[in-house]
């Protein structure tokens, strides 16, 4: 989230699409109801189903699952053709004025540089025209036919309301109302927030869904201001923090990158990433990459990391390919993986194409599950009849189920969806023999090391190089680890005048204090300051809010630098004056940037220097045109899901996202509209959390059994009675559930043909107190987004039939 949960209360228009906040984030959704109640804000919801969010919305429009890009591009086209954009903002805070290379082009649904064989693009032409001085060429009049603004107008012109209706099935008038309400915030005195979640990410074109939303917000000038922003409503309680930490195949903490084979030395790794500014005076914060990287290596290897040994860079594992979750299970399926550790993870439920997952797990030599509760995965080898029909005797996997403490039995810090780090205090003793993850993993690590000390073996040096300096090595405390995350001075840090600004051993106050010479450490530069010299700010509990804008600057710590709204420089115009009294936030008072929040950059830099708000970008501005940073194009294009009831109405020859990666054996099990005419989408229910609460009595009580939602029309067509058991099958498997026949789902007219949809809640499985069910991921396709490799759970094809038998 660019903004905070509380800040949603400042919105004038709330747009929920690709998510269902009322259902998945009820307590965050509170701030939507607050905006409605206090400011008369309007809520609009666009979703294949009339959701719980829609139940309290002022406007609802349906659309076909998987066609969000078309809908959103329609809105972009509406804003551009009706000139409903915040011109000044667009001119100064986006790359609308940048000139794009002449050899960049788009036709027949493909950008220049496509290679069909590798399903990928050569992106060299997706670039700016550079001036001799090394800066990018711009035209602030936005009239140059090759400027981003003009290219956008051309690119999006096809998405007329009629075309949008044809592709998405959203009635023209309902679509237009959404566009008008969005446009109503392009004024500088009103703001719109966009709230989305997995409904946008879990597509083969997920990143482009979000790109569209970002572009709309930038055109309306809604990024960096109160009640605005792009707000990704994240799933697990600490998925933000764990992603920040970088337990992802290609990540290091703080969004630094894993070394790869092509980067044999530290410098060869760093040189690619120290991005130079593309305009004079821009911050281009990644110029400091080296400081953060070296500080991280100092935390990882401690004293062993020296300038001489590239701070231990050579000990780091180097990535040959990225093992995203789909590849991880593909590799496992090929029998190339020996062991799997599942820490609070239930892949049998949460990975696409269950049959493949079962086959993959069965090929493991061993599986270790660390979880407070039993998961379906840890019992994957157990026969549960039709729900998990396996033969234990044929599965040779050794399985360890380790009891782990639950949230009340541990302490530590959490980073919520809006980057706010809060502390959790321990309330109870460990349950029976359960232990904390920290304890278990430390124990394992030390046991393995001991084995190597005794027996020797491969890769001893890098293993021993890891710094493990804790009071109790078998049980590092949360406090020690939190301090490591923040980082400290290893020697007295002096400024230019030689004055000591940070004494040796002191915690760092900001990442600005980090150095690239090994004199500081710090695991996670973006968190620096959360446990600074003045203590653990995650534990701050001052809930005062002087500005009344829901900032709560002294409650916990919001990374980076305790900033609550990112890019807040954009809440003022180029001269530093607020766009309006209504949206006054950060502004230039003549001497410094001031307001209720922490400014994006050094508060004394005057507006004249035109330092852009988007400090992580070389341009200092935001990108309407993403250059080569995305695999599937610098502008969004409507591509059908890989399983779609119709051919792409715009580019009939193109199946799915041309740049999405598909493994061979998975391509073969895509179903087509002939046998599977019905669009299916999966989603979460408010009564349940993921796959945990089927094991929680109270939640099993309020939503006990898997069901299939369908329209009255479809039920009639298939003669399905409410409450009757139905069979839903895709080309990969089948599930059975009770029919919930509802007015909240309606068939849509797509390209002249009637298309039905069914909704499949995913919270059910064969372990727990809720009624047993086969996981919905028995049905889902094994294909991911072109950039993030997020599986396409939200749009695929199935068929439905009633199962004879009594109605419940």
């Amino acid at each position, binding site marked *: 989230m660019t903004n905070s949960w509380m800040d949603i209360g400042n919105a004038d228009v709330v747009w929920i699409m690709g998510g269902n906040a*009322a*259902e998945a984030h*009820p*307590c965050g*959704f*509170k701030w939507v*109801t*607050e905006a*409605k*109640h*206090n400011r*008369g804000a309007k809520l609009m919801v666009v979703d294949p189903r*009339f959701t*719980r*969010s*829609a*139940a*309290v919305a*002022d406007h*609802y429009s349906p659309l076909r699952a998987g066609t969000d890009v078309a809908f959103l591009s329609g809105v972009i086209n509406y804003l551009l053709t009706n000139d409903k954009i915040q011109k000044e903002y667009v001119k100064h805070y986006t790359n609308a004025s940048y000139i794009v290379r002449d050899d960049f082009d788009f036709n027949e649904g493909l950008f220049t540089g496509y290679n069909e064989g590798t399903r990928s693009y050569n992106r060299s032409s997706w670039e700016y025209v550079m001036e001799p001085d090394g800066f990018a060429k711009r035209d602030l009049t936005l009239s140059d036919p090759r400027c981003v603004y003009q290219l956008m107008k051309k690119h999006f012109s096809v998405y007329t309301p009629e075309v949008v209706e044809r592709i998405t099935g959203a009635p023209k008038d309902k679509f237009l109302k959404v566009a008008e309400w969005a446009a109503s915030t392009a004024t500088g005195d009103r703001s719109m927030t966009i709230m989305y979640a997995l409904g946008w990410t879990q597509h083969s074109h997920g990143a482009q869904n979000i790109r569209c939303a970002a572009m709309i917000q930038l055109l309306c000038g809604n990024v960096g201001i109160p009640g605005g922003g792009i707000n990704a409503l994240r799933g697990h309680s600490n998925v933000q923090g764990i992603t920040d930490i970088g337990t992802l195949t290609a990540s290091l903490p703080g969004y630094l990158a894993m070394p790869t084979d092509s980067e044999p030395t530290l410098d060869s790794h760093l040189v690619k990433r120290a991005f130079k500014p593309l305009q004079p005076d821009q911050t281009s914060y990644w110029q400091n990459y080296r400081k953060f990287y070296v500080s991280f290596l100092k935390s990882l290897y401690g004293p062993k990391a020296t300038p001489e040994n590239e701070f231990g860079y050579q000990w780091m594992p180097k990535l040959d390919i990225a093992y995203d979750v789909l590849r991880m299970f593909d590799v496992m399926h090929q029998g190339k993986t020996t062991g799997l550790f599942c820490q609070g993870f239930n892949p049998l439920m949460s990975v696409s194409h269950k049959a493949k997952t079962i086959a993959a797990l069965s090929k493991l030599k061993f599986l270790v599950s660390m979880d407070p509760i039993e998961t379906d995965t840890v019992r994957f080898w157990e026969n549960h009849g039709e729900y998990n029909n396996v033969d234990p005797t044929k599965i040779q996997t050794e399985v360890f189920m380790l009891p782990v403490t639950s949230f009340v039995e541990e302490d530590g810090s959490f980073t919520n969806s809006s980057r706010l780090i809060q502390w959790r205090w321990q309330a109870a003793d460990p349950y029976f023999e359960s232990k904390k993850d920290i304890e278990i993993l430390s124990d394992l690590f030390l046991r393995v090391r001991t084995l190597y000390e005794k027996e020797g073996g491969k890769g001893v040096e890098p293993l021993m190089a890891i710094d493990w300096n804790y009071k109790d090595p078998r049980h590092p405390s949360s406090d020690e680890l939190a301090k490591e995350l923040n980082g400290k001075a290893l020697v007295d840090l002096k400024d230019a005048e030689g004055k000591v600004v940070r004494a040796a051993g002191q915690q760092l106050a900001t990442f600005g204090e980090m150095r690239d010479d090994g004199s500081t450490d710090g695991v996670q530069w973006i968190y620096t300051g959360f446990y600074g010299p003045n203590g653990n700010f995650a534990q701050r509990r001052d809930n005062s809010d002087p500005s009344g804008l829901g900032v709560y600057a002294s409650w916990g710590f919001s990374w980076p630098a305790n900033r609550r709204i990112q890019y807040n420089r954009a809440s003022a115009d180029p001269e530093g004056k607020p766009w309006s009294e209504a949206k006054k936030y950060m502004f230039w008072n003549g001497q410094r940037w001031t307001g209720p929040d922490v400014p994006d950059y050094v508060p004394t830099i005057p507006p004249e220097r035109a330092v852009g708000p988007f400090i992580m970008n070389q341009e200092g501005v935001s990108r309407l045109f993403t250059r080569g940073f995305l695999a599937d194009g610098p502008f969004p294009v409507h591509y059908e899901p890989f399983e779609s009831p119709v051919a792409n109405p715009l580019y009939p020859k193109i199946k799915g996202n041309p740049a999405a990666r598909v493994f061979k054996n998975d391509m073969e099990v895509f179903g087509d509209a002939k046998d599977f005419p019905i669009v299916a989408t999966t989603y979460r229910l*408010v*009564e349940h959390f993921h796959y945990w609460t089927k094991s929680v*009595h*109270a*939640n*099993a*009580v*309020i*939503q*006990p*059994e*898997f*069901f299939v939602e369908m329209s009255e029309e479809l039920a009639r067509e298939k003669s399905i*009675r*409410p*409450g*009757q058991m139905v069979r839903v099958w895709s080309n990969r498997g089948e599930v059975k*559930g*009770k*029919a*919930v*026949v*509802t*007015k*909240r789902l309606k068939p849509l007219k797509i390209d002249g043909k009637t298309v039905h949809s069914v909704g499949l809640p995913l919270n059910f499985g064969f372990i727990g*107190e*809720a*009624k047993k069910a086969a996981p919905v991921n028995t049905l889902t396709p094994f294909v991911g987004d072109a950039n993030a490799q997020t599986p396409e759970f939200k749009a695929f094809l199935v068929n439905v039939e009633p199962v004879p038998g009594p*109605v*419940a």
Partner: protein
Amino acid sequence: MFPPIANPKAEAITPKFGEQDLIRRSASSITPAAKRQTEVAKLIDVSKCIGCKACQVACLEWNNLIEEVGINVGVYENPHDLTPNTWTLMRYTEWENPESGNLEWLIRKDGCMHCEDPGCLKACPAPGAIVQYSNGIVDFVKDNCIGCGYCVKGCPFNIPRISKVDHKAYKCTLCSDRVAVGQGPACQKACPTQAIVFGTKDEMKQWADKRIKDLKSRGYQNAGLYDPPGVGGTHVMYVLQHADKPQLYAGLPDNPAISPIVELWKGLTKYAGLTAIGAFAAIGFLHHIVSGANRVSDEDERNAKRLAGGSTK
């Protein structure tokens, strides 16, 4: 935002009300305290409700209720009705508004309305099994309940449920134990969108006015407060988008009142009945005094003997 109530304290607190604050006690006459406590009320704003069932769970947890895991029968309601363990239940109605042509998903939290004139209490034959505090809370007192089910017949909202296990009547207590220590009910505390708020009845009415204004500004011309006069008003009130059609909301009664049959039963019948019985007894008594016993005379015996034959002395 309606100001949240401060967190509960982890320490013993003396209850703010109790037996001395009763204004009604089933099947017994009491003399109410001279001063009535400020009336409290729970306001349920249907237009803010997302039907998440947090209230149901909070109710189960706070009151240590164990409900059984049911099945899906093709609807979102679970359990399918109020039970001795489910004191509050979300009821869902899908309604296509003929005027706007829009679908409306009307979700109502069902449960005890804590009537000012409680039909359950009126019907209850067991002294002190149902009590009403001067703050408006109508509470069941388990130890006095005899499980006859008369409260079920007395209730205009079909709320009380009789346990098959211990044969006692159960329903929402408005968390009397929380209110007694200055907290709001568990459901209200949990409600993510503040569709449930709790305070004095006056505060709630003022808050409701705000909400109704907002709804009218969004085109709900018939938005209004549900505080039915038929039962003397309630201490659980609804804000409805269509206050002119309460029936829309899973059959919320249009003008609830204690059933005339129950009134007749607990009223005239009760008195007239005992009068009649008393009268019959009295008349018999008087008749005996006036006309004396009806004795068999010797002559009767002689006649009998004459007829039946046999020796005579």
